């Protein structure tokens, strides 16, 4: 998006949380800024948040992920306020480790366990956009798959049958892998929360915002978000 276009709308205020061990916080901030958001760095130990339109839980290994991935981050001081905002309708995006944190918080259903092949996988994957009915995915077409990179050891999505049925019924599955890389139930790569304002996904849209370094299919998500929130 050209800067002039972004200027024309109200600036969207996005916050990116840094936990000890987050390592995609900068990448998310760069992608958001490029899409036109004004980005605030948030610290895990904070208990108050400024006014925000979007909160991003970035990828990484929060607190080392020596316990269950994301389990400690879900109990970080900042999270009580994040949950309050999410319930009040503020957009929350959890990428990779951020998705794991969202499942630990219960903001999206299910959980993420070790990849079926037991190895860390870093590779571009094709994704089917399973629903356009969200502020995150409205910018995509559902006909053609998109390509985003994954980089995780614990991205195997599991979900009890009843909750899965509800996800399907409510059209809350956002992305499915075209070729399931990690054993995820239903090849699910990303799911929406009940209010459709929370998205957790394993692939990294922030790494696909530049034709030089990983394609541009991630840009559409940020542009879609900025467009919807601005």
């Amino acid at each position, binding site marked *: 998006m050209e800067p002039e276009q972004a200027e024309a709308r109200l600036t969207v205020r996005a916050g990116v949380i840094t936990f*000890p*061990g987050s*390592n995609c916080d900068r990448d998310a901030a760069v992608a958001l800024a490029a899409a036109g958001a004004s980005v605030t760095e948030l610290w895990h130990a904070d208990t108050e948040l400024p006014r925000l339109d979007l909160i991003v839980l970035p990828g990484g290994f929060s*607190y*080392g992920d020596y316990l269950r991935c994301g389990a400690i981050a879900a109990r970080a001081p900042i999270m009580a306020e994040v949950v309050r905002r999410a319930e009040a309708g503020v957009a929350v995006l959890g990428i990779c480790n951020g998705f794991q944190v969202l499942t630990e918080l219960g903001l999206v259903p299910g959980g993420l366990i070790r990849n079926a092949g037991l190895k*860390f996988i*870093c590779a571009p994957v094709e994704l089917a956009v399973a629903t356009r009915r969200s502020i995150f995915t409205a910018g995509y077409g559902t006909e053609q798959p998109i390509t985003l990179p994954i*980089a995780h*050891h614990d991205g195997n999505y599991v979900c009890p049958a009843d909750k899965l049925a509800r996800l399907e019924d409510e059209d809350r599955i956002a992305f499915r892998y075209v070729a399931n890389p990690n054993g995820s139930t239903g090849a699910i790569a990303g799911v929406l929360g009940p209010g459709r304002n929370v998205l957790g996904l394993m692939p990294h849209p922030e790494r696909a915002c530049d034709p030089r*370094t990983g394609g541009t299919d991630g840009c559409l998500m940020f542009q879609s978000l900025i467009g919807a929130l601005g």
Partner: protein
Amino acid sequence: MNARPNDPNSPELIAQHGLSDEEYGRILEILGRPPNLVELGIFSVMWSEHCSYKSSRHWLKQLPTEAPWVICGPGENAGIVDVGDGMAAVFKIESHNHPSFIEPYQGAATGVGGILRDVFTMGARPVALLNSLRFGAADHPKTRHLIDGVVAGIGGYGNCIGVPTVGGETSFHPAYNGNILVNAMCVGLVPQDEIFYARAAGIGNPVVYVGAKTGRDGIHGATMASAEFNEETEAKRPTVQVGDPFTEKLLLEACLELMQTDAIVAIQDMGAAGLTSSSFEMAARGEVGIEMDLDRVPMRETGMTPYEIMLSESQERMLLVLRAGEEEVARRICAKWGLDCVTVGRVTASGAMVLRWQGEVIGEVPIAPVSGSSPIYQRPREASPRALPIAAQNVPASVDEASALRQLMAGPDLASRRWIWQQYDHQVMADTVLGPGGDAAVVRIHGSKRGLALTTDCTPRYCRADPVQGGMQAVCEAWRNLTAVGATPLAITDCLNFGSPENPRIMGQFTGCLEGMAKACRALDFPVVSGNVSFYNETEGQAILPTPTIGGLGLLPDLDRMARLAYPAAGQPLVLVGESVGWLGCSLYLREICGREEGAPPPIDLAIERRNGDLVRRLIADGLVRTCHDLADGGLWVALAEMALASGIGADLDLPEACESPAAWLFGEDQSRYLLAVEPADLDRVLAAATAAGVIARVVGRTGGDALTLAGANAICLTELTKLHEGWLPSLMSAA
């Protein structure tokens, strides 16, 4: 060793500390008395081969280390070069061979952790990791276990700390069966006016310990790295350090944040020989003394002794000299990141290291003689027997060419390494332009249109056949790989892996390789700015192949003018740059297809090397060439096959008229060559530029179709070749 009257240190104790009789005599002279146990431990690690370079230092002097763009050469924690726009690249490669053989996961992981600290201790944010791995024969019973552990360890550390692992190399040879090589390279970026050095200064300034607590792991790691392996090596598992990449991430962020204040005078990581080497080296560089209260050091276990504290190689620790009065700033930033930050001593004018324990002096050693006057040996050396050239007509073709290509592309040397690099996060930081699998990796300098090109290279079989040629070739290969993406090669870091220097033949290999490296570095303006020597890579008297791994760094001034391995379309002429005489001696073809591991390696003319490379780089910079691959292991047809697999488009290769030995043409490993694919409309300009530069270049085929063909025949379908090429490593690793 002779027992000395009135000396409490028994000859056995001295020998256990890896000190020779002569070295111990020198310690007695320096101290004027027998050392106590703590002091003996200090001399032991500081004078170990690993820390003192006592067998190599004399010979390393011949390497060129200067150029107008070199900001800091060898001697600091890492080398530094100017990469323009006020930025500098900080980089180094280091071995972690012995620990990785004993305990592959932790050995490899802490190798990565150590090299990261060498870079960020200088103020740079690490932006890329590479690794050069040498395993034993693929069918050796230990190999799979070692690959699995090493790859998981590298990934486990790099992925967690969030620095992309963008490249490297992996190869197999029975000479590494009992002693694998794990060489890790790290590259960081720093504004030129924000570089930090490890030179203690300011009498009275506090010496501050930051990071993880000290435990009993890794004690005598440096000494272990300075001895050969034997059947008792397994018992040395406790000397391997244990890595914690999460703490390293906190340490990285805390250090970089603290560096934004004015608090730091000097900083050095506690790597090999831990607190001992970091304190001695900082004091030696600053020509000052240091006193420390060892009971203040944060400890992970109870009951630790001063000896253990000084020799521990616990990971993720830094030693800092702060400006007096700035301790509070450091404590506040470390507390934010949840790290210990403790003043353990201060800088003195005494020129000595004074160690106290509960208020009492328990060790006192003058610094300069320990750091500066360690013994230097010019050990006896013996030249390798001369390998004879092998004429192509004396290599009878055992299989047809297409079968040979299939076998090479699906064999241990050339099969796809995807199974390995898919386990490494090579995209975090979102600046990776070219990841693993090509000639050089390219990482964008954040926020700019410029890039760093990075590679690691060595052809050990050449080094064994002819150390001088092999050393030269390793440097040229790195230079060529950087050139092949369009980068200007700037400097190298080296990791010199050899057997025991006490064996004259090995010492001859070492000095031969250095001689060849020095020649190539001079001819190519490609100085050495950092590095590491790893001797004693042998088990039960069996030495590894001489392996001087070269880590090369180049600069791409404009990422829009860059070349890739994959050609974009069918119908493009293929242009071979450089001369082909068909050199099969020491080639992969000769070894893998004919079962003959022999012959002289291909010679290199450094003037031609430079001329060919300079032409290719200019063609890329002028936008005339966007597809380029250097010719290396396996020669011309292998290079073309790799380009075709990356493209998903086939290619036809010509056979020269009256070709006496198709194998020599297709698989000969003549040096200084590149294969280009160009737009048909640009062909005349490319060839004219070559002629003008005095470089041999000619059209040898064209892209198109879905198969590799030889003069229109002998088709190998790309789908089949992909399956063979991609299948080898996964099937090795999943075999029952």
